[in-house]
């Protein structure tokens, strides 16, 4: 600990001006240090200020964002007040950046060679041949095969993972001391994410570059970083070695977040514990701890005074009054006394699920092809499945595997090209008008994007009442009561009926979508990635809601997701999709523990697992 810090951030504050003139305090008093060669994860949910913090380091804040306080010292030089010339010299050369979406971060009309060449020229490479040689070297470094030839290819000729590799090569071109990676694997499939994280780990080891990895995924943190900084509501709540923080979280928020993360090792039917409530509104002034409103352990002082980031035992620092006191008591009592985490997460509960009943929905060798004669894309290729009442069938697959198409074909949103769909043994593959109406009443769907799947012009009441109206359920005068009942069923205040979707958060919107799907009292509910767009703490709430509804209403659920861990916990059976086919199907626990298909094994191996909190923590390795 004698080397001076490479990057030192002290009391960083970032503000945005909202369109109606208010001030949004996105980052409050964030402090951390980064040493040479260190790997630091910045983890938090949406709105926690993690990306804003990263952008503020290079003063690349979008729109009305501005640093309103604090310092960012890189080798002693304050970047928060430096001139634009100095910043340009730092960007790329001292601090490189990798962005989230590799699909849009490369200019489609320039070759990959030109992209690299531009960066190298900006950093003083004058000899054209030397630049090209260096570009080849960089591509080889990030693991692109046959780099000499690939240099002249355009971005569309590369896969998503390869494009992310190119972006990493560009960030490394200036041989930076710090590599900032903002959600570098969020847009990628699990198997590709695994490769990119391995690459980043190797690069930091071999080049000595310090890595700041911004992510919402605890598994990614556990997999790739030595130290972790947990952000909540724009403030740092916990800072310490990854192994220590993930096994013995000191701050109640970190503990809650870890409990909410679905674990691949947990058996089917384990209930996830979400964090109740919603994140704080950053446009309001904050007094006290940002997490106090959702914290089960909050005391009076937590609401009135902001807890400082204090020593909370070991090398971990947490911004929590009770945690700091516990650490102080433990220090007095002796080094081995403090073994109890502050907010012991509840023991994972099993969901009592009734056994599945008779088969309601059967699909036989469904096929679906998109495109014209010249460019055909087979989305579904002979997919067969059965679904029983009260049963959850999980469907897992990476992007492009055909799982969303399957959902839409089953819900009769798209017609199938071939095969049969049977509902209670009756063929409903190509229903007539009246029959389609009858089928739709029994098969409903919950959509992936809670922002796009609700009409912004309608009130929540109108949205939920629409199926009632379409299927002529109840007298028009009684529908308002039914809407209120449905909203209560999904855990919303019936007063929500008069407001528009825009005044609700993502999780609340997803509840509205579920209420709408439940309105005609369906037998089958098809959920197409219902939790992919949500934060983990909210994801746990929605998954819990779906399983409760299934138990109470005897619904047959099709639960589609790309995250095997969530699927295992909610599903009775799992079907793994790859290239439009179901490659393996079986009981949820059986499939996860004894996978037979090589693709299933690859998926299981690639899923990053956070350190299991249930086990006794082993000796902490630095």
């Amino acid at each position: 600990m004698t080397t001076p810090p490479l990057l030192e951030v002290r009391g960083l504050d970032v503000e945005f001006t909202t369109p109606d003139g208010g001030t949004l305090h996105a980052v409050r008093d964030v402090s951390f240090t980064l040493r040479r060669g260190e790997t630091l994860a910045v983890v938090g949910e949406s709105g926690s200020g993690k990306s804003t913090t990263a952008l503020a380091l290079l003063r690349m804040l979008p729109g009305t964002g501005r640093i309103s306080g604090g310092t960012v010292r890189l080798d002693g030089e304050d970047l928060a007040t430096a001139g634009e010339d100095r910043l340009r010299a730092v960007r790329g050369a001292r601090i490189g950046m990798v962005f989230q979406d590799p699909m849009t971060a490369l200019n489609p009309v320039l070759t990959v060679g030109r992209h690299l060449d531009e960066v190298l020229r900006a950093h003083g490479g004058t000899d054209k041949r030397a630049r090209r040689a260096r570009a080849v070297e960089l591509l080889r470094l990030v693991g692109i095969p046959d780099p000499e030839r690939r240099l002249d290819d355009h971005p569309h000729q590369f896969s998503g993972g390869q494009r992310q590799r190119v972006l990493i090569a560009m960030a490394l071109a200036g041989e930076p001391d710090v590599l900032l990676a903002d959600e570098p694997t969020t847009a990628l499939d699990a198997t590709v994410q695994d490769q990119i994280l391995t690459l980043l780990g190797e690069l930091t080891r071999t080049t000595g570059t310090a890595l700041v990895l911004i992510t919402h995924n605890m598994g990614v943190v556990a997999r790739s970083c030595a130290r972790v900084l947990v952000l909540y509501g724009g403030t740092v709540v916990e800072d310490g070695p990854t192994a220590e923080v993930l096994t013995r979280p000191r701050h109640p928020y970190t503990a809650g977040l870890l409990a909410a993360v679905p674990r691949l090792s947990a058996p089917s039917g384990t209930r996830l514990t979400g964090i109740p409530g919603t994140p704080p509104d950053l446009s309001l002034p904050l007094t006290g701890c940002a997490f106090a409103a959702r914290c089960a352990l909050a005391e009076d002082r937590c609401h009135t005074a902001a807890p400082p980031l204090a020593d909370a035992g070991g090398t971990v620092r947490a911004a929590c009054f009770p945690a700091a006191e516990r650490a102080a008591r433990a220090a007095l009592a002796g080094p081995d006394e403090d073994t109890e985490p502050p907010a012991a997460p509840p023991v994972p509960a099993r969901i009592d699920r009734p056994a599945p009943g008779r088969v309601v929905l059967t699909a036989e060798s469904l096929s679906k092809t998109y495109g014209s004669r010249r460019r055909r894309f087979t989305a579904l290729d002979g997919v067969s499945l059965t679904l029983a009442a009260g049963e959850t069938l999980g469907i897992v697959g990476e992007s492009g595997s055909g799982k969303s198409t399957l959902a839409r074909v089953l819900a009769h949103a798209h017609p199938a090209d071939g095969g049969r769909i049977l509902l209670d043994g009756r063929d409903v593959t190509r229903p007539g008008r009246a029959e389609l109406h009858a089928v739709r009443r029994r098969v409903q769907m919950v959509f992936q994007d809670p922002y796009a799947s609700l009409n912004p012009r309608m009130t929540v009441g109108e949205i939920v009442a629409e199926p009632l109206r379409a299927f002529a359920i109840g007298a028009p005068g009684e529908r308002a009561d039914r809407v209120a009942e449905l909203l209560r069923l999904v855990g919303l205040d019936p007063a929500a009926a008069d407001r528009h979707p825009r005044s609700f958060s993502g999780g609340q919107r997803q509840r509205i979508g579920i209420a709408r799907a439940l309105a005609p009292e369906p037998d089958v509910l098809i959920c197409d990635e219902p939790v992919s767009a949500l934060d983990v703490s909210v994801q746990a709430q929605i998954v819990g809601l779906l399983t409760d509804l299934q138990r109470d209403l005897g619904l047959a659920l099709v639960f589609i997701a790309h995250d095997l861990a969530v699927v295992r916990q909610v599903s009775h059976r799992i079907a793994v999709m790859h290239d439009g086919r179901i490659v393996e199907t079986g009981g949820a626990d059986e499939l996860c523990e004894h996978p037979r298909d090589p693709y299933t094994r690859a998926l299981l191996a690639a899923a990053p697992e956070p350190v299991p909190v249930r086990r006794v923590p082993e000796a902490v390795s630095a």
Partner: protein
Amino acid sequence: MTTHTPPARTKPAGTRTAPRRPRHAHRAALATARGRTGLALVGVVVLAGLLAPLLTGHGPTDQSGLSLAAPGTPGHPLGTDDLGRDLLARLLYGIRADLGIIAAAVPLGAALGCLLALAAAAHPVLDTVVQRTFDLILAFPGLILALAVTAILGPGRLPVILVIALAEIPVFGRLLRTGILVQRGREYVTAARVGGTSGGRILTRHILPNTADPLVVQIAVSLTVAVFVEGAMSFLGVGVRPPEPTLGAVLSQSMPYLAQAPHFAAGPLVTVTALVLGLSLAAEALNREIRR
């Protein structure tokens, strides 16, 4: 004026931040400084046209012995034209004639364009037919179209209305067709379909309300264009038949006397500028509010 900012609604606990857009986005847009200025300018011109008989004692075609009288002549505050007609009267009645034409032509063009767009959305074959019709109309430059229509129908009020309406049909038609195509691909439309909602109701309750915003902006823009088209046609002598005054006709008449009597041209120029500026400001205010 009916513009007012919507009162801030109190939010029950448990909801997120304030709604990003107030309930009446259009009203809020017109309540901004830009919107208010625009509406005020348009309002003054419209009032002047509507109150023409009260604001002047002369008829637009009444002739007096004075020709080309200077502004400030007793009884003729803006002076008279070459034929001794009161310029204020001709200006005010000209505004009246202009507004009548625009108010008929733009909604007519918008309505026809929207109907064609709806037809195009109904069936792929109809879509091709409608699209090619729009291409055909757009292939003619505006003035050539104006001359062609006048050559067939003869000069007058109706050809001007038809020319403006015809020119606006593809503008509104394409805008609405694009909007429908974009909204139809949205997830909430799929959700409504799966929810059993009928095709007609999806169109009227889901798709159309979400395509309305750009159309509102376009109406304000089209009104501006219509002022120009009408003025240009009258100026070229293919518009409303003299002696009936329009802004373009008065301007055209003033051209030979521009050196001796510049005030002759000033009235219609200032009015057209005020009208176009007002409409543009209103359109811009609406556009900004909608883009947010």
